[in-house]
Every structure is written in C-alpha cells, then in structure tokens.
C-alpha cells in the first residue's frame, strides 16, 4: 500500500528556487502549529471572523500535495466556502421576525446576483447570474418561505425547506426543467449562509489577488473564476486528472491538489505555492512573497522569450505538440510543432445522429490547414464510458469504463469508424496534409491489424494506436510491427493499470502519473519504439508536468502533447537539462518506491 497522505504533517524540506542549484535546503519547519493569528505578518483585519476550519487551529509550516499546474506564486489565502451546514432547528421564535429575516436574506442574495450579472464581462455568464437573481426573488419561492415561517420554522430552515420543496417539484417534472434544480441549491446555500452569517459559498472576492484554497473545485464553482485575481489554486482533495488540475493548466495557473491540511490554512495567511513540486509554504512574509512573484514573472518572461522546437540542453529533439478538441483550440500565440492529439468527439457529442461525411471533412480540413506541412495526429472517435453518444444506441453498461468504448464501438458499428476514416482521408486530399491517425483503446494485435487495414485501405499512411490498456503496452513491440507509431494516454493507462476510477477523488494517489508502475509501462513502450525506430508519444496529463516531461524523455519518449499553456514551461524544463540528465532523472523515478519520493528525488536533482 502506498502511504496515504491523510494527516496534515508538514515536511520541513523546501524545494530549491528556480535557478538555485544548491539543492534542498532545510527550512525551519514550524510543524503543525496551533497558534491562530499570532503571526504578525497576517493581517488580522481580514483573517478574523472567517475561520471556519472543521477542527483544530490553522495549519502552519509546509504542506505537500501534488503539483499539477507548473509555476510559482505567492499571495494570501482565501478559501472557497462550502455549503453552509444547517444547524438544529430552533422552535418558538417570533414567526414575524423569522419571516422578515428569511426574506431579507433572499433579497440580499438576489441583489448580489444581480450586481454580479451586471459586472460579468461574459454575456453567457451574465445571463445565468441574472436568471439566478430572478429565482431568488421568485414570488412562489417567497410565498413558500413565508408559509414555512408562519408554521414556526426559523429563518434558515424556512429558506432551506422552501428551496428543497421546489427542487423536488422541478425534478419531478423532469426534462430541461429538472436541470434548474441546481440553481435552487445555489440560492439555498447563499441565502442560508446569509441568515447564519457564514461566508458566502463560492469563489471569494477579497478585492485583491489571492491564492484560492478549496476542498475541491467543480466546474460550476470555477465558471466565473476571475483569472486576473486568482494567483494559484490549492485543493485539499482532487487528483492529477481532476477538474482543478485541468483548469489550472488551461489557465496557466500554478496549482497543487491532494494537499492535506490546505483548507486549515488560516484565511488571509501569506503562502508560497510551487505548482511543480507540490509544495505550499506558510509563514512567509510580504517581502518574500514579493520576491517569489518577481522570480515567477522573470520565469514567465524567459519562457515567453523562448520558442522554437523542443530540445534538451544538448540539442536532442523532442516534439512539443498540442492536445486540441477542434480548430478553435489552436491559439496563434502558442508555438507548437503540431497537434499530438486531435480529439474528434466534439463533432459527435450531443448528436442524435452521427455527423455526416461532409461536415467531418470540413472540421478536419480546418485543423490540417492550420498546420501546413506540420504533424497532426487525429484520434478516431473515443465514445463510451464517460462520453456516451445517443446515436450509438448503446445500452447501459454496469461497468462502462470496461465496456464498449473507443475502438470497441467499431465491433458493432463499423460504419461510424469507416465514415470517419473516409472523411479524414478526404480532408487530407483537400488540404494536401499527411495526417497521422490513431485508434483509442486498442488492446490486442488483432485490433491494431484491423484498424491499420481500414486506415491504409483509404490511403492513410501514418497509422498508430493509443496505448491506454496495459495489455497493449506489454505488446508494444508486436503492435509496432503493424503500426507506425504509438501514443500513450497516461490518464487512462493509469486508470486501467491501477484499477482505479479516474473520477474517484479518494484514489488520486494511485492515479499520480509519477507512479513507478505507470512509468515502467511507459518505459516498455519507449524501448519497443527505439528498437523499431518508430516514434512514441505521450499525450496524457503526464506530458504537461515540467518535472515529469524530462523523465519521459529520459525513458525514450519522442514527443509530448499537451494543452497550450503547458508548452512553454515544458519547453523551458527540457532546455535546462541534457539528455543524460533526463536519463538520470528517468532512472531515479523508476527506482523510487512511490510517486512522492520519485518527485522529490527528481526535484532534488535540480536542472542541468
């Protein structure tokens, strides 16, 4: 069993600052201190009154989690408050007073939402906030709240019960109307917090840049996230493939997830966040924070100035490619050598019928034309599992992740794959591109054979497979007798190698891309690639980690594909290390007994 990181035990080791090759210094770790507010550098004005930590005092010292968004930041911590817990009902209060209090809270919520709607720059976000403000002021909701108060409920319970009643009623109607039930949850949380004097649930707005700390972040929490004021993300839970991690990379924010004790850092405390090593350090002062920000800005400048193809310090080339969902994801300011993963699902989602040949040709051609003469790797439809498609008419499966997904869909519906390959081939002819195509969820040599035959029959010359199934990784050499390349999808490969659901927050440690067992599978594929003289790419989140990317290169991976904001940090990390250094890092990581030690040992090697 890997040691679970359950207890908030701060370690006393600090990571070297970028550019500081002195190795690990030993900082005076202050341990799990329980002295709230005695740090003179914490402004008590904002730290007071909002400390709703579940147990114990604020955590100080150095916390360690998983670094999932590279870069460093420093600032004051503000927590995302969760839904307010409902206290035990209070009976016998003055119904008139409770009624007024409940209505006041709802009115406050409505005007707050209205103000946010007016301030939102995104019209879609503004419309959603405005609709929510109408719900908070809805006459039917107010009538129900009044009725509850008249029946003797206290204000908080009157609001809670009214929202719950409408929530159930909307769910009972079903369809699109049921989707509005979530709005009522948000109104309920805000209004109950208002009644109880608790912090407003949601992203805090302290009026200056801050480090956002949360238990975990859901897409709904971060829809209106102002990237101008959030310096970094730190979450108590969540894993390397969690929404927080994906969001952080998309926004280019430093982020640490699965960080025990994070939610017990005192509100307003100055912290430094290292999204590469996963370290969150309290007890820093404003001056040190300023210094960290200065260095982070210098790092960003250096990265912005760097460009060109990916290579190690001694010139060993490593292709840096983009993961995209459509041509809309191609941003002109990001310099990449091509597309390493073109997910084609977007064409198929929310469809009652499969998209037609012409529509597909147009979508593929748009991407091919964006990289004239460059590499574009198209992944054929990856349906099933968490991406069910209505037109496939697949029944419910007890175990969708282990069911008919990816290439397996072609067993029952080969026409969908054939039409897609026809469209890719036609788009290639139209644009003069020579696309690479690969199938998701290949498990056996026979499946690879079948896919390769279909693709080559259409004149597609570069045919490969995603490696997500451990059985396929173990047969990489035989697959490469039929295929031209392999691309490792490390997120699914982790899920299947460790028998741990990607969405399961409590198993995040098993899904850590630094797991030596996963790296061993990568190593097997890279070895087979070297022997065959064929390219081996990584297109999972692992490729976007600037500390892990050199390890992958050291293992023999020839290309790394990632979302756009990760390209510059990865290019930078490779440029600082020789190929020999990468190979050393790879040995170090493979030798480690667990991901945390692997990460620490490689970080301790330092660059160059």
């Amino acid at each position, binding site marked *: 069993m890997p040691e679970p990181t359950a207890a908030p035990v701060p370690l006393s080791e600090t990571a070297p600052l970028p550019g500081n090759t002195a190795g690990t210094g030993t900082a005076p770790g202050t341990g799990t201190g329980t002295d709230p507010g005695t740090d003179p550098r914490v402004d008590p004005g904002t730290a007071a009154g909002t400390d709703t930590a579940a147990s114990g005092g604020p955590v100080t010292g150095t916390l360690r989690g998983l670094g999932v968004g590279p870069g460093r930041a420093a600032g004051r911590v503000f927590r995302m408050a969760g839904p307010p817990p409902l206290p035990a009902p209070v009976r016998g209060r003055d119904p008139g007073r409770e009624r007024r209090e409940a209505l006041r809270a709802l009115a406050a919520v409505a005007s707050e939402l209205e103000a946010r709607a007016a301030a939102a720059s995104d019209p879609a976000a503004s419309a959603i906030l405005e609709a929510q403000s109408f*719900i908070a002021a*809805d*006459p*039917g*909701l107010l*009538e129900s709240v009044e009725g509850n108060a008249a029946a003797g409920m206290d204000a908080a319970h009157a609001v809670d019960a009214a929202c719950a009643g409408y929530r159930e009623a909307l769910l009972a*109607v079903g369809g699109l109307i049921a989707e*509005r039930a979530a709005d009522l949850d948000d109104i309920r949380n805000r209004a109950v917090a208002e009644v109880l004097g608790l912090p407003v649930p949601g992203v805090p707005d302290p009026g200056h840049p801050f480090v956002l700390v949360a238990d975990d972040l859901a897409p709904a929490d971060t829809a209106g996230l102002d990237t101008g004021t959030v310096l970094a993300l730190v979450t108590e839970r969540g894993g390397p493939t969690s929404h927080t991690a994906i969001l952080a990379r998309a926004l280019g924010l430093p982020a640490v997830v699965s960080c025990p004790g994070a939610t017990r850092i005192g509100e307003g405390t100055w912290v430094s966040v290292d999204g590469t090593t996963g370290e969150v350090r309290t007890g820093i002062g404003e001056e040190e924070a300023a210094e960290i920000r200065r260095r982070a800005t210098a790092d960003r400048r250096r990265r912005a100035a760097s460009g060109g193809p990916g290579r190690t310090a001694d010139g060993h080339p490593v292709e840096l490619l983009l993961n995209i969902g459509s041509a809309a994801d191609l941003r002109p300011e990001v310099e990449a050598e091509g597309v390493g993963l073109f997910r084609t699902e977007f064409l198929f989602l929310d469809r009652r019928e499969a998209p037609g040949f012409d529509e597909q040709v147009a979508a593929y051609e748009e991407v091919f034309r964006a990289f004239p003469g460059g590499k574009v790797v198209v992944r054929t439809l990856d349906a099933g599992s968490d991406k069910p498609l209505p037109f496939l008419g697949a029944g419910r499966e007890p175990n969708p992740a282990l069911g008919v997904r990816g290439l397996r869909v072609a067993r029952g519906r080969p026409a969908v794959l054939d039409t897609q390959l026809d469209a890719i081939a036609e788009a290639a002819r139209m644009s003069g591109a020579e696309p690479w195509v690969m199938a998701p969820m290949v498990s056996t040599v026979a499946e690879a054979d079948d896919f390769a035959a279909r693709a080559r029959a259409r004149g597609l010359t570069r045919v490969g497979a995603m490696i997500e199934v451990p059985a396929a990784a173990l047969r990489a050499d035989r697959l490469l007798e039929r295929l031209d390349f392999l691309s490792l999808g490390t997120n699914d490969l982790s899920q299947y190698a460790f028998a741990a659901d990607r969405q399961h927050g409590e198993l995040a440690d098993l899904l850590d891309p630094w797991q030596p067992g996963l790296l061993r599978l990568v190593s097997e594929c890279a070895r087979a690639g070297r022997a065959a003289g064929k390219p081996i790419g990584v297109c999972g989140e692992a490729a976007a980690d600037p500390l892990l990317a050199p390890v992958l290169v050291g293992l023999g991976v020839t290309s790394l594909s990632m979302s756009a904001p990760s390209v510059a940090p990865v290019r930078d990390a490779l440029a600082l290390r020789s190929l020999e250094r990468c190979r050393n890092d790879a040995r170090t990581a493979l030798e480690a007994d667990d991901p945390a030690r692997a990460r620490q040992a490689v970080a301790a090697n330092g660059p160059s």
Partner: protein
Amino acid sequence: MPERTVVIASRTGLHARPAKLFVQAAAAQGVPVRIRLGAGRSVPADSMLAVMALGAEHGAEVVLEAEGPGADAALDSLAGLLSRDLDAEEAPDA
C-alpha cells in the same frame, strides 16, 4: 372568486418560452393571479418556479383565479394567452 378554466394549447406544454411569456404577462396584470392544475394547490401565476413546477403539459386543464377590481379583464387576457399555441408564434427577439 372569478375563475377561468383553460386548456394549455402550446405544444410543449407550459414550459420554457410559453411559461416565461405567461409569467411575464401575469406579473404585468394589476391584480394578483393564481393558477392551479386539476385539484392541486394554487400558486402565484407570476412565479416562474411555481409555474414550471406545475408541469402542465399540452392539453392539460388549468384554473386561473383572481379577485378585486380588474380581475375579470386580467383573467380573460391570461386565459387568451394560454389558449394560443405560443410555440407556434415567432419569438419577437429571435
């Protein structure tokens, strides 16, 4: 109390756009109007939540009620609205 019984004519029922048009019209009346479905409890007609929660489908019979000066005119106007297929009418802002 003055009442009107009316059958929902909109093809999609009293949901989405028809519901919104109805609620807006109800709010614009000078008197409070309530609506109920069958033997259910009456709810404020100017409440989007309550009207959506009725789940009144195409062909369902609803009862509108109001009291006071202008009640009959308000009921006539709203009953007229519900007896039209609002889905078939072009959205003015479309």
